[in-house]
């Protein structure tokens, strides 16, 4: 007979209530882990979707995400001619607000040339950009329907397609427009002095500038070798996709990542203390029963098993409730809650460890209960 299960069965209502309470606490911790992973996933979402092997940006910068970068539009053709480059596309990136049917939405506008690298890898509904200007493909996070008309910088765009899971590192949904539209938008959003310089037709007067050129390499090309070739051009920097990914996670979202990580650790610590207190209270509630067990000759392993199994079952019930809650509610969160098997398994391991550590104090207290406490009134 399993004493831990029998006790739980006897006090099922209290056990379930405690499990749900713990589950709420664990749900906060689990969602923090998911948001932590989501921040990283979101930071890398665009980079991964573009499937770029090489990022060519302004010399001396680490753009276009970590720093601003501006290079002439004709760099794309030069990059495309580099040995080992299979295809290249110019892109622009700018964060702005747009007037949508449901109100003002903050988005990151990405300009690219249809048919060249820079567009979304997959379209969830509708179609990709065609040859017509003022079309837009928006991420589902923007909440726009196909055919919706939005206004950016005074220009009206029609939504022709949607994507899923493409957001900027700050969590803003991405919208894709023609490169030319995006360049005009950047000009409109530029400071007045810059606009006057363009109007005057000076050296920097062209609006044919882009923020980066992304390149896809031939299967046999060495990304570092091609990047080295690109860097030798004095006015350009080049990052491989691995370097760009490292930059995104270690620089662009680093503070948010560390902040979330620390908050998660604090939450787990609080959970550990609360779990330990609950287990201790549950154990002390059975003081007379434990004393009786010891008096009738129960070995220590029976007492330890009773406390430890209940701790693990409570932790398991709480974690199951937490997982169900977070998975049911994760679409409600404004940022991605990225939880996979690895994160859930790791969290389950941490909760298990917390339960074991949290039960140590209770086990020690239970083993110190004198059998004589079973005697007398």
């Amino acid at each position, binding site marked *: *007979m399993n004493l831990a299960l029998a006790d739980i069965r*006897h*006090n099922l209502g209290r056990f379930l209530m405690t499990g749900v309470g713990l589950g709420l606490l664990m749900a906060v911790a689990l969602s923090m882990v998911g948001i932590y992973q989501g921040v990283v996933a979101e930071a890398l979402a665009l980079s991964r979707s573009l499937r770029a092997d090489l990022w060519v940006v302004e010399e001396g910068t680490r753009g276009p995400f970590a720093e601003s970068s501006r290079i002439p539009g004709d760099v794309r053709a030069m990059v495309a001619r580099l040995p080992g480059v299979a295809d290249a596309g110019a892109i622009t990136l700018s964060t702005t607000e747009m007037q949508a049917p449901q109100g003002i939405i903050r988005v990151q506008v990405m300009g690219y040339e249809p048919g060249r690298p820079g567009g979304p890898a997959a379209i969830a509904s509708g179609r990709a950009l065609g040859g017509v200007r003022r079309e837009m493909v928006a991420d589902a996070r923007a909440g726009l329907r196909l055919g919706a008309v939005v206004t950016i910088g005074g220009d009206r765009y029609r939504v022709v397609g949607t994507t899923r899971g493409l957001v900027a590192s700050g969590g803003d949904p991405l919208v894709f427009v023609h490169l030319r539209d995006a360049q005009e938008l950047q000009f409109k959003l530029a400071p007045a002095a810059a606009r006057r310089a363009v109007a005057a037709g000076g050296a920097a007067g062209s609006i044919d500038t882009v923020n980066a050129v992304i390149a896809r390499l031939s299967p046999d090309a060495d990304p570092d070798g091609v990047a080295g070739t690109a860097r030798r051009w004095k006015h350009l920097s080049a990052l491989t996709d691995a370097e760009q990914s490292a930059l995104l996670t270690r620089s662009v979202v680093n503070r948010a990542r560390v902040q979330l990580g620390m908050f998660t650790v604090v939450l787990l610590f609080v959970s550990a203390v609360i779990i330990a207190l609950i287990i201790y209270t549950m154990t002390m509630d059975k003081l*007379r*029963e434990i004393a009786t067990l010891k*008096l009738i*000759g129960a070995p220590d392993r*029976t007492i330890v098993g009773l406390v430890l199994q209940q701790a693990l079952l409570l932790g398991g019930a709480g974690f199951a409730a937490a997982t169900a809650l977070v998975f049911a509610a994760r679409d409600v969160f404004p940022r991605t809650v990225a939880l996979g098997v690895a994160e859930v398994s790791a969290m389950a391991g941490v909760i298990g460890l917390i339960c074991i550590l949290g039960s140590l104090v209770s086990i020690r207290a239970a083993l110190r209960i004198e059998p004589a406490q*079973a005697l*007398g009134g």
Partner: protein
Amino acid sequence: MAPLVQLEAVSKVFGTGETAVRALTEVDLAVEAGEVVGLKGPSGSGKSTLLNVVACILEPSSGRLLLDGQVVWDGRYRIGDLRRLRRERIGFIFQFHNLLPFLDATENVALPMTLAGTDPGAARARARELLDYLQIGRRASAMPSRLSGGEAQRVAIARALANRPRVILADEPTAALDSERARVVMDLLRQVARDQQAAVLVVTHDEKIFDRFDRMVALRDGRVEQVEARAA
């Protein structure tokens, strides 16, 4: 035949120096197989200390304790695994029955047997037999909270008999029962002592059951003050 419970000049002192309290002084006591012995005395007379010593949960300061002919303590020697000794040789009956509230009557009775390594099926079968023997078989599936005081105490007696102990210790087993049920419980203990040839030692204040003992031992200030033979 040697007594099943034998105390020889057992003393117990708590603390040391000026704060030392002498709870038992040179107590000699023997309980034979089939005998039911009562232990009475005012509060602080040493009843609980004596019961704890016989229950092997308190080590005497001096003297010898033998259970079923085996030396448990003698001042220099002590049996290593006292918990096993309690599990296999001693049955306990408590004032408030101390049934585990999360086990039903059968499971409570089977518990000491499963702790001793008996096959669960066999333990349950014997638990049912014991409950029938104590005329409480119809309540075998009841949880302790559903049992009356008398029923719970019968289940507790069944649990005490589970591993066929030679020694049964009872701490105020009738304190929570009315006169009629108290007499029934004492008659059951007498029946158990006789049928199983066990030595039964009962601590009690309950005067209405004094006539149910073979002998009544009165303690005062840690010493045996008087021994009276009672039931025929």
